[in-house]
């Protein structure tokens, strides 16, 4: 009964726009008081704030956020799109495909999908519009390509899942790589199909000479180095994800210095922005701990797991329902909030059903990518619309084909878990 009351209060507070962290701490705190009395609530409120923060692994989040902000500051992404466009621009829809490739390249050194979408919006979108691409399609591919950042190493979202699910974060980051390549190919194939259906959507551009192509390739080398510093060291087991994240941030700092983008003001703004992002994420994790104590005390999770386990349905039906639920939730809730609210309940269920938690984490993040581009609050679409000065509705229309394509991609990942699990199982530790 208390559990129903607490959940009702939580949803009410979320609905009226209370910050997610406040809503979780308040309803969880009330639940603790009702079930355990004042001493338990006081104990939790006294220990949780500090214990939730004083963890060494947690610094992976501020370091990846800082790395993303510094990469954004350095402006290296401009070269990335130019290079991709020189290589694949001649194919029908080539600039759209170049956007997907630039999104994947940028995503591998920048862990937040919004930063990635903002960068692509200011570089590849104007280039496509100038070449006479259909604005709807151009905006759509920019919005979806930005989400690749969530799946590649340096992804803040994957780290949050890893911390919540208590899985090996190094393995988790590495396991996103093959699915990210697969999703990139899916995006490119969707573009090819769209252009094949209506060639007027994407006029062909003139070819770039081979010497120029190789000259441009040289310009992306700093990004390749940065990628190797982080992903290479994690994959080879040379550094922990925490160390690799600080290395990546330092590398991005050097890159920004080399590009002469660092001055006291820009550095301060970047550091403060990353600190505030960290604060927002850590507060949610901290308040989720308070809420989690309530669930542990009342055994809500065990009851749900027991109830679902006793159901006479295939586990594939259950995972399908869970993923559909995630896509629906993702259309109106923030992804970090979804992770924090659902992982503590869904993950024990996933384990009880015999699925791999790392496999599930990656698929969860692919559904989060979909959430970034579905109305009414698909954040990436808003970013693209603002940078491009185009109506949001048009961007949402443009992302629709990619939404459908992503559903197929998710189905394939569910059916063939080895796509996700093959690479981490060959890691050097």
């Amino acid at each position, binding site marked *: 009964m208390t559990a129903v009351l607490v959940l009702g209060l939580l949803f009410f507070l979320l609905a009226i726009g209370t910050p997610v962290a406040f809503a979780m701490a308040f309803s969880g705190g009330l639940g603790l008081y009702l079930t355990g009395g004042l001493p338990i609530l006081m104990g939790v409120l006294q220990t949780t704030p500090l214990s939730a923060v004083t963890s060494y692994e947690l610094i992976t989040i501020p*370091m990846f956020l800082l790395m993303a902000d510094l990469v954004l500051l350095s402006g290296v992404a401009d070269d990335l799109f130019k290079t991709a466009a020189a290589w694949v621009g001649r194919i029908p829809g080539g600039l759209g495909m170049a956007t997907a490739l630039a999104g994947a390249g940028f995503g591998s050194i920048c862990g*937040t*999908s919004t930063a990635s979408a903002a960068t692509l919006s200011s570089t590849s979108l104007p280039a496509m519009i100038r070449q006479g691409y259909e604005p709807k399609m151009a905006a759509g591919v920019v919005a979806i390509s930005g989400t690749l950042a969530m799946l590649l190493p340096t992804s803040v979202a994957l780290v949050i899942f890893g911390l919540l699910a208590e899985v090996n974060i190094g393995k988790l980051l590495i396991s996103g790589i093959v699915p990210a390549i697969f999703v990139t190919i899916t995006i490119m194939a969707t573009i090819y199909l769209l252009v094949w259906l209506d060639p007027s959507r994407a006029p062909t551009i003139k070819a770039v000479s081979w010497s120029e192509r190789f000259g441009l390739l040289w310009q992306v080398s700093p990004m390749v180095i940065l990628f190797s510093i982080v992903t290479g060291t994690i994959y080879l087991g040379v550094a922990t994800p925490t160390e690799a994240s600080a290395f990546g941030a330092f590398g991005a700092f050097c890159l920004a210095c080399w590009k002469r983008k660092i001055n006291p003001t820009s550095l301060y703004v970047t550091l403060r922005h990353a600190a505030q992002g960290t604060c927002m994420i850590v507060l949610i994790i901290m308040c989720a701990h308070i809420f989690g104590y309530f669930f542990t005390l009342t055994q809500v999770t065990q009851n749900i797991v027991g109830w679902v386990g006793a159901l006479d349905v295939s586990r594939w039906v259950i995972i399908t329902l869970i993923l559909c639920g995630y896509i629906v939730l993702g259309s*109106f809730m923030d992804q970090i909030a979804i992770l924090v609210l659902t992982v503590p309940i869904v993950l024990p269920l996933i384990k009880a059903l015999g699925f791999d938690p790392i496999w599930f984490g990656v698929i969860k993040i692919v559904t989060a990518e979909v959430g970034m581009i579905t109305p009414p609050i698909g954040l990436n679409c808003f970013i693209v619309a603002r940078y491009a000065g185009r109506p949001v509705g048009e961007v949402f229309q443009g992302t629709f084909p990619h939404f459908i394509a992503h559903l197929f991609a998710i189905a394939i990942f569910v059916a063939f878990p080895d796509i996700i699990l093959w690479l981490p199982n060959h890691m050097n530790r």
Partner: protein
Amino acid sequence: MIKASLRALTAIEKLTSAIAACFMFAIMIIVFADVVMRYVFNRPFSWAYDLISLYIMAGVFFLSLSGTYAVNGHISVDILLPRFNAAIQRLCIIISNLVGLAIFIPITWLGYLRALDNLSSGDVLAGAIPWPTWASAAFVPVGAGILALRLAVHLVANTASLLTGQDLLPLPAISGHGVEKAGGFE
């Protein structure tokens, strides 16, 4: 009165944010240097791990707490709110302020008691370097306290706005219309 308190809070937050920003930079440099010392010179810093997990990370978080709230950086589900009229929006925000106060006043008070307890008992971390634990625990009442003050001022300002019909405090921007704010870190 309200304007003056908001200005004072902003000034305090400017200071704490600056410290938090320095701490961010420190984490990056210390962890980088630690790894280099370990692999290249085989002499890691013995103090890096405790210093970062005990003090610096707590500092980044607690000293940014109120500043992040001030720029509307703590995410919320803002899908229903913009559909209401201004008075109901105000009422919802007042409830949120109260909820925030109900959490952060006890956290500040209990955190203060704990830091005081650690200080008077001279509690230190077991290990090579006896780090005092009160200095870490003290971040809790400082950070949570500033946020509680800001929430109290917002509560007064929002209630006054609701009663007088004046906009003493602007209503928060709708999701996607101010994406350069601190939210949206996926």
